[in-house]
């Protein structure tokens, strides 16, 4: 049976999911973008992974439009005037979102919704504003049917932010993903606590380290897709990843890995990125004719390439001959120190590389702790995370995270699952978040043990939707199928639960 026939006969795919699968299939029929034999060999071995980005990129992977510009000057191509009231504002956004491409064909960044909409919300009666925003969120959930669709709020408290939190809790939707940009000087405890309460009930928002991101990107940064730091008015060209465990399989020792095998694989991934970035800019039509570019909603110089890594834990355990994961990376200072050496080696080599374009970042790519894909199974844990099932106490997990998060301007994060008593004590979670962000954690996600909406690796799914797929029914959300794969292959929902009785001695 042909691949195309498989797709159109699959009972679990919606019409739109079929269409996207057929588009990927069509893209794969061209092979004019070629890489070195060594690259293909490393890919075949599983040491390099292109995350199924497709062989002929026709848009950057992640695009973060400048929505403030839309509200300031409108959009000629979409025939939108600057909005004058709340209805016009959400209508303009709903239309615009449908024309923002990405790797998933859904917009991965919806804007800083509270800042964008606050001037309109404050002119309206609160109940009316809430009604409009509720319909706006419903539109996003049913039209942008993909959990990598992401909106940001904060760092300041606002009426719009509060209404969005209320609606998020009431509506229990997987889309959009949501981040609070947390700054201890700008975010009040009261607003942060409202976010913690919402997070416990709906697995969102997550908490981003605002100061850390501002230092790297400036004030105008976006958190997009899972947890990806990018520039507003820019984005990420491409995101391939080193599967570090597989990269290490031929290494004779940790030193041999760092001196020989690691640089070799880094260079192959850089070759892939360079060719791909040039192709997107020079060959595909996106940067020449797309209205997002021609009208200035994104600028070429604000894009960068995202250099992804995955499976650091398994890599370190393998190199040190540690077979029992419980005694490995995260629990074992030798393994954790090796992890730091490896990350420094990666950071150094990537920062020495002169990348094409990426003008705003000194022609440099930026590191990303890739969150894993459903087919990774248990071989490569997400980014630099401690493997699921062997996590130490929450304190120890945070301490390890804090060592690794600063390496990844284009995103990393960890997820903590809390048991039921925490719903009554959200004020017990806020100091943990504040302390860890102050100590170098980049991104904190949490959810409550028995929720329907849960965070898998970086994205959200509904457990009830996974059950639909298991029953061979369709799920509107494109990402539910990844959630099912991550649950089955990577036990992604079985992460350690923060109980109140954990002891240290």
């Amino acid at each position, binding site marked *: 049976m042909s691949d195309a026939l498989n797709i159109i006969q699959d009972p679990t795919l919606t019409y739109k999911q079929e269409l996207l699968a057929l588009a990927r299939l069509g893209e794969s029929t061209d092979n004019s973008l070629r890489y070195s034999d060594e690259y293909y060999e490393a890919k075949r071995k599983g040491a390099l992974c292109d995350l199924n980005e497709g062989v002929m990129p026709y848009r950057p992977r992640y695009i973060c439009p400048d929505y403030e510009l839309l509200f300031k000057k409108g959009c000629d191509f979409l025939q939108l005037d600057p909005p004058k009231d709340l209805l016009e504002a959400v209508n303009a956004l709903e239309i615009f979102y449908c024309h923002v491409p990405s790797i998933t064909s859904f917009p991965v960044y919806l804007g800083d919704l509270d800042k964008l909409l606050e001037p309109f919300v404050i002119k309206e009666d609160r109940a009316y504003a809430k009604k409009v925003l509720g319909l706006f969120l419903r539109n996003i959930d049913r039209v942008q049917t993909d959990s990598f669709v992401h909106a940001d709020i904060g760092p300041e408290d606002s009426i719009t932010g509060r209404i969005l939190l209320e609606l998020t809790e009431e509506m229990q939707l997987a889309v959009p993903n949501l981040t609070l940009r947390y700054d201890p000087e700008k975010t009040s405890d009261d607003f942060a606590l409202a976010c913690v309460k919402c997070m416990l009930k709906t697995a969102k928002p997550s908490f981003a380290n605002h100061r850390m991101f501002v230092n790297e990107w400036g004030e105008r940064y976006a958190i997009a897709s899972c947890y990806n730091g990018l520039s507003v008015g820019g984005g990420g060209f491409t995101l391939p990843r080193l599967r570090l465990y597989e990269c290490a399989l031929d290494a004779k020792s940790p030193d041999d890995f760092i001196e020989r095998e690691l640089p070799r694989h880094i260079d192959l991934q850089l070759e892939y990125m360079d060719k791909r970035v040039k192709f997107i800019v020079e060959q595909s039509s996106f940067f020449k004719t797309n209205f997002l570019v021609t009208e200035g909603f994104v600028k070429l110089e604000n894009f960068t390439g995202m250099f992804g890594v995955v499976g650091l834990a398994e890599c370190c355990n393998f190199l040190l001959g540690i077979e029992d994961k419980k005694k490995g990376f995260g629990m074992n200072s030798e393994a954790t120190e090796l992890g730091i050496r490896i990350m420094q080696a990666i950071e150094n080599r990537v920062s020495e590389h002169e990348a094409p374009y990426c003008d705003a970042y000194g022609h440099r790519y930026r590191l990303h702790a890739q969150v894993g894909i459903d087919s990774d199974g248990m071989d490569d844990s997400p980014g630099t995370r401690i493997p699921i099932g062997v996590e130490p106490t929450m304190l120890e997990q945070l*301490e390890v995270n804090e060592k690794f998060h600063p390496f990844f301007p284009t995103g990393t994060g960890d997820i903590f699952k809390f048991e039921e008593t925490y719903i009554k004590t959200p004020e*017990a979670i806020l100091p*943990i978040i504040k*302390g860890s962000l*102050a100590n170098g954690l980049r991104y904190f996600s949490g959810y409550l043990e028995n929720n329907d909406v849960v965070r898998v690796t970086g994205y959200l799914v509904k457990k009830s939707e996974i059950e639909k797929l298991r029953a061979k029914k369709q799920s509107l959300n494109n990402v539910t199928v990844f959630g099912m794969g991550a649950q089955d292959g990577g036990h992604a929902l079985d992460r350690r639960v*923060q109980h*109140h009785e*954990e*002891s240290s001695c």
Partner: protein
Amino acid sequence: MKKAPVNKIIQFSNVDGPGNRTAIFFQGCTFNCMFCHNPETINMCRSCGICVPKCPAEALSTGTGGEVLWDFKKCVQCDTCIRLCPHDASPRVNWMSVEDVMQQVRRCAPYIDGITCSGGECTLQAGFMTELFREVRKLGKTCLIDSNGSFDFEKEPEVLEWSEGVMLDVKAVERGWSETLISDSGDMVLKNLEYLKKIGKLFEVRTIIFPGRDVENEYTVRYVAEKIGNACPYKIIRYRPFGVRERFQTIIGEDETDNNYAEKYARLARELGAAKAFVV
């Protein structure tokens, strides 16, 4: 250097006072409550050695003086030893100095609001706690005492100086019921209730509601509610048989207290002026 027997330290606790707290549980208690959920913390190990050969991880051994020794690194926390112990004790106790405890607290400090000392009965280590609190205060963190009220705070108030206050259990008021339930008259508990309120160190009061004990429950709740008024939260706790020694379950109940039944007492307490009474 002064050392105290520590049963365990919980790095992050959301149930031992407000916010996120590091909770230090000392070994040894002054009461023997029928409903105790962790009876292995009541007595000090007598080194009878019964548990030593039964440890599946070989974490227990006998020292040269006949004392039972515990190897933390080998221990798999299976709880075999504490289930076997005929003395309501545990061989898994660390004798720690203030500095030993502070090393743990300093590590937790960026993420916590403060610490809570609990037990067993932490006031058995009042001198140790005073020193510990003084150090913890230097980190800008708060210190709470979780106590059964058997310690004479009026006579030795130093430990209160560095503490935000006491979370006091008032388990029984009527003398006969108290002697049955906690093996003590409870007189000191009631004295402390008044003293701590008077000096503003009563942080919260807790009472457990037992199933079917209408007379005893009401007597206790009435007394406490009238005494404390609006001074502090009054937590009405439902009895849960989980972890309670079997021989006592048959006396005080094998069933959990019904939530509506507990709510009745929270309402009563509020009617009597304890505005901050609620069921947890």
